[in-house]
Every structure is written in C-alpha cells, then in structure tokens.
C-alpha cells in the first residue's frame, strides 16, 4: 500500500485554498453563460474584432520583443557591461509599476507638449488612440517577460560551445546563428508566449492610451460598466478559450523544435 507522507499531506492541505482561489472564479465564469449566449457573443462582430485586435496586437508586441529584446538579452547574458544590474532593474520595472502609470508615462512623453511627441507627430506616428499606441504599451509591459526568459536561455548555453565554433572558423555572427540561436530557440518561443500572454491581459495601461480601438479587456470592462456582469462574461470566456488554444499551439511548436535538445 502506498504510504502517506504527513508533510506532503499538510502541504497539500495548505495549498488547497490557493488552488480554489485560482480555479473557482474562472470555472464559475466559464460555465455560467449559456451556450446560446456564448454563440450570440461570438457572432457579434465588435466582440470578435476586439478579441482579434487583442490577440493580434499582443502577438505583434511579442514579435517586436523578439526582434528588439533578443540582442538585449544576449548582451545581458554574455557581456560584462557597465551598469548591468541597473539595466536589469530597469527592465524589471514594468512588472511593479501600476499599469495606469505606464499609460500616463507613455502619454506624457508622446503628447504634443513633448519634443519626442512632436517629432513622432511630424513623421506621422500617433500614439493616443491608435494601434501603434496599444502595441507600444503592450511591449512596455511584456518586454521584461521576454528578456528575462531569453536571457536565462542564453545563459544556459555553455560558452565553450560558442568558443569551439569560433576555433573551427565561424565568426561571431555565424556562431550566434548556427549555435546560440538553435540552442535558445525554445526559450525565444517561450519568451514570445510570456510576453504575448502578459500583453493580452493588459487593461490599465491600454485604457489610458487607447480606449478606442477597443481591445478585449477594455470591451469587457465597457460591457460590465454599461450592461452588467451577464454581458461581459461571454467575451471573457471567448478570450480565455481562444488565447488558451493559441498558447497550446505555440507550446507544441516550441516542443517540436530540436527534440533532441530537450
């Protein structure tokens, strides 16, 4: 007979309230709307538009973090740069700043009163109430998740592999593409997933920079304040279902890359 370990049982009991806290509200919300209600909601073009916008812009932020965050993560993982700890601290800042503050900070920099805002406006880039503005905010809040994940990936590649590659004749860039990237690809996918996931959930900063065009969290909030719980729940359920499927897909993609490296 399997022996019951008292310490494990105690820890399990102590964990239960936490598990309930996480699962019960989500289960309640997911199963409360009727199927008809869910079908009606998905047929609503505004709702689908907001969910598609949320996912699309969040993926956009994820891809931008991949393009811009990868070099930064590499530098932080591999080089002894001056002020490295300070840079790492700055990258982690968005995790602790209240989200509306992020929105306000971005607006204050990109408004007509600021030279940067005027410059952006002159070259035709609008932040307030635009998709560009939303992506900007989402990148701000999602970047720490990408950079930290990929930095850990780069750190996990033994420097000797890169050194061996160079002694075999490959230059630094070639070594990066042929050795470092294939060995950190899964971390990059995971980083994009983390950044995108964080971006999809963002409300506080987005609502300040762009109430319109409406992302799914803003629409959920709008429907809640205007029509009540019953009309906001189905949108939330669809957002969860679609995002969940997307992340499963991305995970499968990352697992199928270089199975021998796992």
């Amino acid at each position: 007979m399997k022996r019951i370990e008292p310490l494990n049982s105690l820890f399990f009991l102590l964990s239960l309230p936490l598990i309930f806290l996480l699962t019960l509200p989500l289960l309640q919300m997911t199963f409360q709307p009727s199927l008809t209600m869910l079908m009606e909601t998905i047929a609503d073009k505004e709702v689908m538009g907001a969910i598609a916008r949320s996912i699309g812009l969040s993926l956009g932020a994820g891809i931008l973090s991949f393009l811009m965050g990868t070099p930064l993560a590499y530098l932080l993982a591999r080089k002894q740069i001056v002020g490295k700890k300070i840079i790492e601290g700055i990258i982690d800042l968005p995790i602790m700043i209240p989200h509306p503050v992020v929105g306000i900070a971005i607006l204050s920099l990109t408004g007509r009163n600021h030279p940067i805002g005027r410059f952006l406006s002159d070259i035709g880039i609008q932040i307030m109430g635009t998709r560009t503005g939303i992506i900007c905010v989402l990148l701000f809040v999602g970047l720490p998740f990408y950079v930290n994940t990929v930095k850990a990936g780069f750190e996990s590649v033994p420097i000797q592999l890169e050194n061996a590659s160079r002694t075999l004749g490959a230059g630094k860039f070639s070594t990066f593409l042929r050795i470092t990237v294939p060995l950190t690809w899964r971390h990059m996918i995971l980083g994009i997933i983390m950044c995108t996931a964080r971006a999809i959930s963002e409300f506080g900063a987005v609502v300040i920079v762009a109430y319109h065009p409406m992302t799914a969290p803003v629409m959920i909030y709008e429907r809640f304040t205007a029509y009540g719980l019953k009309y906001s729940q189905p949108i939330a359920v669809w957002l969860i279902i679609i995002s969940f499927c997307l992340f499963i897909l991305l995970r499968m993609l990352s697992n199928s890359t270089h199975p021998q490296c796992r």
Partner: protein
Amino acid sequence: MIHLENINLRVPGFVLKDINLHVQANDFFSLIGPTGSGKSLLLEGITGLLPFSSGTLLVGNQEITNLAVEKRNIAIVYQNFALFPHLTVTQNIFYGVAYHSISRQTALKRFDSLVSTLGLEKIIKRHPQALSGGEKQRVALARALILNPRVLLLDEPLSALDPIFHEEAKQLLKKIHDDLDITIIMVSHNFSDVLYLANRGAIINAGEIVQQGEIATIFERPNSKFTAFFVGMKNIHPIHNRNGKILIKQENIEITPSVQPDITATYMAIRPENISLKTPGMEKFENCFTGKIERITGNGVFLNVYLQTQNFQFEAIWPRSYLRDHDLDIGKPIVFGFHPEAVHTF
C-alpha cells in the same frame, strides 16, 4: 613552429607572467601543472579566445598575436568535448568545413578517413547526447582534424574519461600524432599520461613556466622542488654539500650521489620506487641504511612504505607482492638502500 615570447595574460584574480615557450613542428608538447596553475588559460590565449596583455605569438613565420580566433586555424578539443548538441555526429564533424577553403571532395575524403581511423562508423547519425565519453572525444577530434589545423590543442583530453576509455584514448592520441604528423599541445596534470604521449613539455605553476624541455629530462632532472614533487619524486630534502657528498640538513644523514652536486643545489630527491631492500647476494648499495618499517599506506597494487632509520624517514613505493615475498610488515627490522644514480639534486 609555435613561439610564445614574453607573453603576459591577465584575467580577474590571475595572471600568466612572462611566458616563453617554443614548440617545434610535429612536437607532442605538454603543458603540465596542477589545477589552477594557468595552463588552460594559456591554451585559450593561443586560440585567441583570451587576448594576451603583452607579448608575441608566432606560428610558423606568421605573427598571429592579434589575429581573430576564426582565422587562426588552431583547433582545440575541450575536456568536456563541447560537441554541438543540436547537430548529429556528421554535422558536428563537417561544422567548420564551410569556413575553410576545402573542396567538397577533399572534405568527404578526409571525413571517410577520419571515420575509419577513429572508429565512428556506427555513430555518425547519432546526436552527442547518445554517445559515451570516449565516443564524444573521438568526434571532437574528428571535428578538429577534418580542418587540417596548424596546431591541435588538447585541454585535459584524458581526465574526463572513465578509466575504461582512458587507456584506449591514450593509444588513440599517440596514433593520431604518429600517423598525421601534426603538432599537438596538450594540457595535463597527470605526469604518467604525459610521459607516455609527449616528447617535449613545460611545467607551469602559479602562472609561470618553471621548467621546459624534453619530457625525459624533466622527468629525470627536475630543476625545482615543485617540479620534483610534480614528476613523482619523494624524499625531497634541503641539503648541504660536503666534499662531494650530500648531508641532509639537520639530520646528519650522509648520502652519496653519482655525480658531484651543482654548487647551487639546495635540495635532493629520490624516487620512492628506487629505494629497495638489501637482499642476500645483492651487490652493495653505496647508500645503505638499517632501520624498520614504520608505516604502510595505500591499498592498491603499490603501497607506500615508510622506512625509519635513526631519526630519519625514507618513503618507498613497493608492490604488494614484494612485501609478501620478503615477509615484510610494520615494525620489521630491515636493511634498505639505493644506488647513487637514484639521487637527484637541484
């Protein structure tokens, strides 16, 4: 072939000081020293991965002190082999070919030859994770040798291997050196490996070369207490020089060497395996002592036997069977000694 002249290399907390090394073409040269002596650092410096703070590195007649790592054609096989885990054995071996002007035909010919020499036929489609230590090393060697490097650097090639592969790998390295006429610089802390493989070498301690030359000379005639200890000598004592004889300081023990000690000599050493029992019928030792067995340590085939004479102790290494054949044990009175040729002074 390879000349390191007045090389200094600084890394945080360590410095290689005034290194002057001369490796000749086709040498199997060994850098020997204890862990942390700076020998692997020097190897990284030769590859170019760590820049020298000062000094000159010449390979052939070309100065390559500031040449980029990838342009040196100096291959290194690391202690942990550094095989690329996402590539198969074949892909690993071919990795560097694209960066060298090697025709496809030549590369394929060299590949076939290396696969056959190193016995890789059965594993060429595998990934490194599915290889044993010995196989990984052979793949790492093939990956380096397919490029026909000017010099092959080996960083502790035998220490990460299981004992079962150790001997096999040693034979293989010898074969590669003999067959391919290649210049090899090997870092090692194991003098018995070096003695088997290398023809020349240098002893390095705390970032400085303390002796270099023919391995046999280093082994037979160490020039310092450190080297003597490192090449396996024991019974190392400070000495006085008295009328061609040696007097061990403070102990009034007189020893006869075969050659007159150098006037600057301050130490003597005797290999423990050169001390033996005086048995009936044996010609007289010039250095002969009466005493008893004080202590026996070790539990392998060879035992460390501590021989007490008056107030002085010698250390000998004898096979277990030697003790059994002569019915020796702790406390047993014996007569022992060594020939004058066994006495080394420096």
